[in-house]
């Protein structure tokens, strides 16, 4: 450890002011602080500090994403072999998925981090850790067939327009990962929707799709009224259905949710209120049902599409969510409501989670504003109470 640190310190001078690679100081620093927690000590204020830092916080979100990532990889392979009717064991399926998904992850990280480092250098601040999570979220919310260049373009767009123009991590209004997805969704709709994008078929010569192959996600199937392709509840819960890479398995998402909540990294408040919003809206539609979609049991909504994934990983992004305690309940609940509204009522988009979260991202500051105003009013009432009322019983 000592030798490694000495080497690092040796090289450091070349990156510092006047050094040959002065321009790359922030890049060097990012790697340095990644390898070593520095020996910087407190100067003002509290002399001791909690052992937590941004790296560790973000790292725990990444850990929480591992279950969906692994499941997503396997499911990509599973769906492929299912569609082509070829025999494959578990390992084949996983390796196939790994080969397909890993490039998405790498492209997302490389393009996004390049922008992050660039902006850190231009603005001369430390590289923020936020993208460690965003970079993994992006490949998980897009179909496996998305061309790599699109991933790169969308990532760059999301990081610059979604985050850096507002001042970087912590200042952004919209969730960058969802913004990347929305960018692709509207810029290249053919690659982000329809029945052909969710499963990598990639037929080689002599292969063909099995009879009756649809490739439609449950959401698409139900929106089109094609109930014959509709998977069972168990399939939807486990996630052996077509969809974006990481979104299909409610079970894997629950495992991630458990990690987020147990470590205190994700807000249980938001997760539960999204679910409550979804369930209640689903129930309301049941009451006034005029078509098949409105009749489905409300809990179907939770296990179809990106509902669970969005509720656990996207809605809980602390920067873009409401920041007050009460605000989080309202924010989460409305995400649930709007998602189901878009799904059931809007014929253009089969999935509503992405738009619902982005929509509520925009409204989160407004929600907070009213919560803060309520706090101000309550406080004013309290401080202006006559002395006598403070005598405790």
């Amino acid at each position, binding site marked *: 450890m000592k030798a490694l640190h000495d080497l690092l310190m040796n090289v450091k001078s070349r990156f510092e002011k006047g050094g040959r690679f002065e321009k790359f100081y922030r890049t060097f620093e990012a790697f340095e602080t990644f*390898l*070593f927690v520095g020996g*910087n000590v407190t100067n003002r204020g509290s002399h*001791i500090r*909690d*052992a*937590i830092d941004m790296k560790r916080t973000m790292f725990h979100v990444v850990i929480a994403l591992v279950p969906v990532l692994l499941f997503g990889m396997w499911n990509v392979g599973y769906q492929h072999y299912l569609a082509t009717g070829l025999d494959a064991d578990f390992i084949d399926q996983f390796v196939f998925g790994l080969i397909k998904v890993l490039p998405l992850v790498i492209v997302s990280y490389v393009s996004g981090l390049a922008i992050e480092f660039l902006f850190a250098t231009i603005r001369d601040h430390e590289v923020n850790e936020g993208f460690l999570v965003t970079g993994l979220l992006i490949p998980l919310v897009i179909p496996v067939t998305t061309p790599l260049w699109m991933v790169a373009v969308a990532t760059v767009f999301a990081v610059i327009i979604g985050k850096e123009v507002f001042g970087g991590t*912590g200042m952004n209004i919209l969730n960058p990962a969802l913004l990347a997805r929305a960018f692709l969704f509207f810029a290249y709709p053919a690659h982000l929707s329809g029945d052909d994008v969710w499963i990598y078929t990639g037929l080689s010569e002599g292969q063909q799709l099995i009879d009756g192959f649809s490739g439609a996600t449950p959401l698409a199937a139900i929106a089109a009224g094609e109930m014959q392709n509709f998977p069972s509840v168990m399939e939807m819960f486990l996630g052996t259905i077509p969809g974006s890479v990481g979104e299909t398995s409610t079970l894997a998402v629950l495992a991630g949710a458990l990690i987020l909540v147990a470590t205190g990294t994700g807000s249980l408040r938001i997760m539960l209120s999204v679910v409550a919003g979804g369930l209640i809206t689903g129930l309301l539609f049941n009451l006034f049902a005029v078509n098949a979609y409105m009749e489905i049991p409300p809990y179907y909504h939770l296990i179809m599409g990106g509902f669970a994934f969005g509720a656990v990983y996207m809605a809980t992004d602390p920067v873009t969510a409401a920041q007050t305690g009460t605000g989080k309940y309202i924010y989460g609940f409305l995400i649930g409501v709007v998602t189901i509204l878009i799904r059931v009522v809007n014929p253009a988009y089969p999935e509503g989670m992405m738009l619902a979260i982005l929509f509520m991202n925009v409204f989160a500051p407004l929600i907070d504003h009213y919560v*803060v105003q309520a706090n101000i009013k309550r406080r*004013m009432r309290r401080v202006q109470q006559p002395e006598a009322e403070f005598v405790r019983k």
Partner: protein
Amino acid sequence: MSTVIKIRRGLNIPLLGSAERILQKPPLATEYAVKPTDFHGLVPKMMVEEGTRVKAGSPLFFDKYNPDVVFTSPVSGVYRQLVRGAKRRILEVRIEPHRENDYVDFGAGQPSSMSRDQITKKLLQSGLWPVIRQRPYSVIANTNDKPRAIFISGFKTVPLAPDLDFFVYNQENEFQLGLDVLGRLTDGDVHLSIHAKETGSKAFLEATGVRIHRFSGPHPAGNVGIQIHHIRPVNKGEVVWYVDVQDVIAIGRLFSKGIYDAQKIVALTGSEVLKPRYYKIIRGAQITAFTGNNIREEEDTRLRYISGDVLSGEKITPDGFIGFYDDQLTVIPEGDKPELLGWLIPKINKFSVSRTFFSFMMPWKKYRLNTNIRSGERPFVITGLYEKVLPMDILPMQLIKSVMINDIDLMEKLGIYEVAPEDFALCEFVCPSKIEMQSIIREGLDNIRKEFE
């Protein structure tokens, strides 16, 4: 007695090195210092020349903007040296003590037979006025104000907090007399907060002429600001005063004996103290007088000496002086060593309120924490965390942000008048973005004060 005010939010940081209830009387220190920097916002004007002989209670300097407020020598001796810092700012006024303490005689007095003005004058002359501080702003009380009430916290909850029962032991009469004096300074009440279970001293339990409030719960329940908030919050335009327990005793002694008797007890605490215990010293003593060889010296470990507690205390040198208001000296290791993949590898010697380290599984464990900051400063990312350690009906993050943008109107509405930097110490401790909240709150208070003065 009144019901218990239960503080539910907060955090006790489990540190090694709390003081054992043993009181020692160390020899006289080689030097004593009055540090103008202990009094926020003070611009001192010297009243004596170097080399002048002073008595305990002789004036040394006064407040440029409030010349009535003088600061006196805690011991008799010779004023030796003025230590200046950057921009010729006065840092320390050093006194070399004589063996025998000579006191200026201010004359004893019965508070009940004195007018408010007489009492104020006596406190000002003796140099004890600065022990009275005010909210808002957390500065020395303004002599022209009529406080709505006076608050005294009868227990402490800061990390490695000294036991205030121990402080008042055998000084019950002086404490009560001090309370009587304070009672004459306000038309309102004198509020004394005690711990619902742990306070046992008669001085607190049987104090008269005050309203006693019982509190329970984790730190910062012992902070006077938290207590004021729960007893009767400060509104814009109102002023309340607060005094530390040992300073109430000092006021009592002034009125019973007529002298500025600056003796006080300090607790020597922290993981690097071999035998943490209490010492009876004179205010402003050089700490070497009682740290002696009671500090763990290791070859490759540098130490941080803190006058006060680890959350809000002042960093001093190993031969520095104990602060005017401080009743605790804490010694912990510096954290100046880099750590390979320190953010990734969870070691059991780290403490965190987040459940991303093992500390949440070992609530019994006590820690030897160092001063490592662990990361550069980041913008706010995590939400909902700060509220858990600030037991006030105040939105900490929103308040901090309002200070950052210097929106005075919003700061007022969000409760800046009720808070002091120390109330945000835990928020600062838990902050994953390492934002220096105590400094920000201080800056906000300063800005508001400038606006209205």
